[in-house]
């Protein structure tokens, strides 16, 4: 078939316009494809299970999974409009809130992973004060970093009393084993790897964090966020998404072994380790969300923001409740 230049230009312009509006060629979709920012971290298990177990399909939803190495990269993509829904460590979200970014809202709290993050020591060290003059390895700008800063401050030590080294999470087990650091603060899966090393003691986990007892808030809890512009134009889709999402959290909580099987493809963990990772977190239900998003937990997140300011991690504490949106629950 011969195509004239005018027909070609017209066709190309129509195609580009269709692609620019994000509509699939041929027919308009009832629901948009949700772009989710994930990784192999346990906070993303519900979104992954909702996708692979067909819970999203049941709600006539499609999810496009995009992986990110860090929460900050994921949040950058949210800011740029490339991701619609994501689970993120709250520290990244708080850092953006402190800059006045209004592009996203917190719509749910997926879990509490306080028992799979902590500070390991060896050589008979019994408390943090005994680490004076020694080296702690931790990934800077992470929840484990905040845990270490909090533990040091609670022990009445000064920042200079202990050398806190910035070590990427994957390098921590080897650095600790090789004796390059005297203590290591890590989260799962490095947490599990370090725990298996001989002569290692867990000195503190997230349950010793100063905000845990009063607010049940760990140093860097996960939060589920939605891009505001997306939520405003697709409110019904976001509500349906959460229905599928909490069906997945129920599976994780009630049937960890069944939930673990499809997750092994995401994490590359063996079955026993995968079941252990699922059981390592407390999975919140949809019914618990109202209590979390309207209650003391948000107050705890506010205190966490203030603590980040005290430790000079962010410049000012945002008013966290302004970013909480329980309307989709």
């Amino acid at each position: 078939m011969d195509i004239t230049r005018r027909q070609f230009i017209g066709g190309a312009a129509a195609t580009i316009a269709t692609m620019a509006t994000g509509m699939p060629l041929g027919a308009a979709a009832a629901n948009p494809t949700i772009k989710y920012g994930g990784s192999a971290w346990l906070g993303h298990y519900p979104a992954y299970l909702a996708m692979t177990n067909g819970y999203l399909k049941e709600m006539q939803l499609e999810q496009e999974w995009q992986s990110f190495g860090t929460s900050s990269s994921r949040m950058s993509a949210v800011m740029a409009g490339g991701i619609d829904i994501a689970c993120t460590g709250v520290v990244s979200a708080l850092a953006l809130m402190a800059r006045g970014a209004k592009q996203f809202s917190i719509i749910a709290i997926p879990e509490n992973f306080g028992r799979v993050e902590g500070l390991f020591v060896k050589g008979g060290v019994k408390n943090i004060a005994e680490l004076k003059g020694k080296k702690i390895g931790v990934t800077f700008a992470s929840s484990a970093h905040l845990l270490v800063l909090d533990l040091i401050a609670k022990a009445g030590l000064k920042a200079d009393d202990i050398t806190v080294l910035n070590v990427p999470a994957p390098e921590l087990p080897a650095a600790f084993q090789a004796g390059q650091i005297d203590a290591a603060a890590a989260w799962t899966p490095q947490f599990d790897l370090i725990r298996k090393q001989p002569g290692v003691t867990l000195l503190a986990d997230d349950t010793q964090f100063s905000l845990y007892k009063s607010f049940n808030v760990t140093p860097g809890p996960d939060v589920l966020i939605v891009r505001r512009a997306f939520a405003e134009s697709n409110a019904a889709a976001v509500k349906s998404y959460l229905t599928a999402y909490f069906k997945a959290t129920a599976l994780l909580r009630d049937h960890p072994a069944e939930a673990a099987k499809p997750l092994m493809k995401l994490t590359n963990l063996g079955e026993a380790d995968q079941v252990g990772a699922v059981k390592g977190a407390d999975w919140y239900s949809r019914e618990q969300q109202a209590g979390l998003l309207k209650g003391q937990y948000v107050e705890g997140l506010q205190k966490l923001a203030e603590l980040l300011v005290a430790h000079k991690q962010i410049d000012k504490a945002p008013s966290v409740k302004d970013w909480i949106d329980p309307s989709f629950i």
Partner: protein
Amino acid sequence: MSSKSPSRGALLVTSATSVLIFLLIWETACRSGLVDPIFLPPPSAVLGKAIAMGNEGTLLANILASARRVMIGFLAATAVAIPLGILLGTSVFGRAAFNPILSFLRPLPSMSWIPLSLLWFGITETQKYSIVFMGTFAPALVYVIEATRNIDPLLIRAAQNLGASRWNVMKEVILPGSLPQILSGLKVILGLAWTCVISAELVAAREGLGFLIMNGKEFFQTEVVVLGMVLISVTVLITDLCFRAIENRVLRWQK
């Protein structure tokens, strides 16, 4: 058309004006809301951060930490590359033996050395020097080999015919002849060393301009990120000026 070239002062004023206009447009775009400061902070915010960090003393500490890593890694690389490069530049067999290794090392970005350097040197300053070293050694060696090979063979033969020993040929012909090209190559490598130090400071660093940028990125402190970028450019510019002064002094005979 007038053939009179513009004065140095006029060129300086033109350059300064263009920089000021650029900064003014940038500031106005941010202040007017055209650009969200989270995506690009105004120059005034970057300057404000620089002043605040300067008062705390952290600004200079970060600059010095990076500068030390750059200089040690760079000097170590040149200390090995210059004699080895001259040797390989004057020896066909040496080049045949070393070229395959050099061809393997040359395309490797400094970041690719991070996992191995961590295993070899641990979380130490030596690990950071080694990243700068590995990122600059191969390109420096190539510059030195090429500079040595570019010496006119007629000059070498003439010196030999006049009875110069191998050492004298090296001292009187090869070294002075290749030095201008070696120095201009090292100037480029010094700039490269600064890009290597950023890779080095991505891992296990507590200070330095690379650390400043990465930490700023984690907390979305874009003014810190831009400040780190500006400081790298300014520091490279200053070291380039210093290098040019050394070049002028060492190569005075060439003028």
